[in-house]
């Protein structure tokens, strides 16, 4: 087996003087669904922001065999790394369709996803294609942010807390979309606070605590390890 698609080694990052990431190491393989779990403030979001080049880290991040530490966010995105931020940062004044078109990196390149494909998975978005993104419900906005990133045809998509604050029905829909994404050969790094869908869909999971990885294993292994769940995940 060659080098995994995304290889993070001994990643450190600081916000001012606080040492947020203290040597984070993990991998995401091609076509794999991997979850990064942990409570608020342990550095999950900082980890993906560091990968995207939004927070300057030290250590090594290799994507498709290339060192990406030091690249700017748009350069990282253009290599095929998609990022869905947790705050559902849609462009409120633009319509659903315009939001989706902004996700495309260029109009020439035909990727795995078209607007029509995504409308098929989410008929709700199709119905609201010409409404401003700002008036959508929280769940619809979450769908839109994921779909917008997919329009850029990433090979690996990193999704920050997609189920946060959503109704159980919407959580189901998000799970369905993630399965669809994986089916098209896109790797997924799912960042979650709760176990909700992570246990069900992940191939492997990592648990983070205080700036480093404290557990690595399969869903079954995590299920069996009550001590890790109690110490690092449950409230």
């Amino acid at each position, binding site marked *: 087996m060659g080098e995994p698609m995304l290889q993070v080694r001994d990643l450190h990052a600081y916000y001012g003087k606080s040492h947020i990431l203290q040597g984070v190491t993990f991998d995401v393989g091609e076509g794999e669904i991997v979850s990064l779990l942990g409570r608020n403030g342990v550095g999950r979001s900082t980890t993906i922001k560091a990968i995207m080049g939004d927070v300057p880290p030290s250590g090594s991040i290799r994507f498709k065999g290339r060192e990406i530490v030091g690249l700017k966010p748009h350069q990282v995105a253009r290599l095929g790394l998609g990022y869905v931020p947790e705050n559902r940062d849609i462009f409120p004044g633009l319509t659903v369709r315009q939001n989706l078109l902004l996700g495309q990196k260029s109009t020439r390149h035909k990727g795995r996803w078209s607007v029509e494909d995504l409308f098929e998975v989410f008929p709700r978005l199709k119905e609201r294609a010409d409404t401003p993104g700002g008036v959508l419900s929280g769940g619809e906005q979450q769908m839109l942010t994921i779909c917008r990133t997919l329009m*850029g045809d990433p090979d690996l998509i990193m999704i920050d807390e997609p189920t946060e604050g959503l109704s159980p029905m919407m959580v189901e829909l998000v799970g369905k979309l993630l399965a669809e994404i994986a089916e098209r050969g896109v790797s997924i790094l799912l960042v979650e606070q709760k176990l909700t869908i992570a246990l069900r869909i992940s191939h492997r999971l990592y648990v983070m605590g205080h700036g480093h990885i404290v557990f690595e294993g399969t869903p079954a292994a995590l299920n069996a390890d009550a001590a890790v769940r109690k110490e690092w995940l449950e409230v």
Partner: protein
Amino acid sequence: MLELVIFSSLNGVLYGMLLFMLASGLTLIFSMMGVLNFAHASFYMLGAYFGFEISRRIGFWPGFVVAPLLVGAVGALVERYGLRQVHRHGHVAELLFTFGLAFVIEELVQMFWGKLPVDYRVPASLDFTAFTLFQTTYPAYRMFMLLVAVGMFVFLLAILTRTRVGLIIQAALTHPNTVAMLGHDVPRIFMMVFGVGSALAGLAGVIAGPALVTQPSMAALLGPILFVVVVVGGLGSLPGAFVASLLIGLIQTFAVAINLSLSDIFGSGGAAIFGDLWQATVAQLAPVIPYLLLVLILIFRPTGLMGTRET
């Protein structure tokens, strides 16, 4: 009376559209930088001088095309090698940078073209009377200015709302980080916006130069009115800038044409209390009216007519 209304409206709309050519760029640049660009009116002056220099060598029309492009290039370079470096040190540094730049440009203009107005003339092909109404003639060049200003407005609107680049710009102004994460080169977009904004100011200078006076103080004369426009319209609001440009344009033009004073309306009684102010005509007070509006807007509606941000 009708004559006054028609001509003042025409001139007011013309002046307003000219203001908008500057205010639109300034508004876009404000949205992305978060501070006002004090040097914006200087790009307008550069446009007039570049236009003059080219027109005197090869003619008005080449200048009309090339001068705005040159000014746009200067603007883009200023953003790339000046503002982008200063940006790291915060808003105050950016503000001071543009403030200093305005002086640098003014001094350079004086070095190259002298302190006196230059002879930038209306081209012969547009130097005729467009129409005569009530024995008053209206110059064709003014109609040309109006046409250019309206054309530019339609062009800008179409780019911003109908094209993909326009969508990316709109999104990048409010959510630069998100847009970068989607794979768009936001710094390059900002450089482009700064360049296009400067080019628009340059275009305004090229066409206003022959009609007004091309002189080193022309930036300092227009700059303050420009700030009134963007604050009254609402900082960062393009529709607001449009409405305020027309409003200020019309107010200025009509005020100059009205020769009424308070004593004409209320009789001479108030003169004892207010002195000469009672006798002053609206025309005499015209220069102060925009600033009065600015002060009132800041007191009663600090976000401006259509703005959403606090000033």
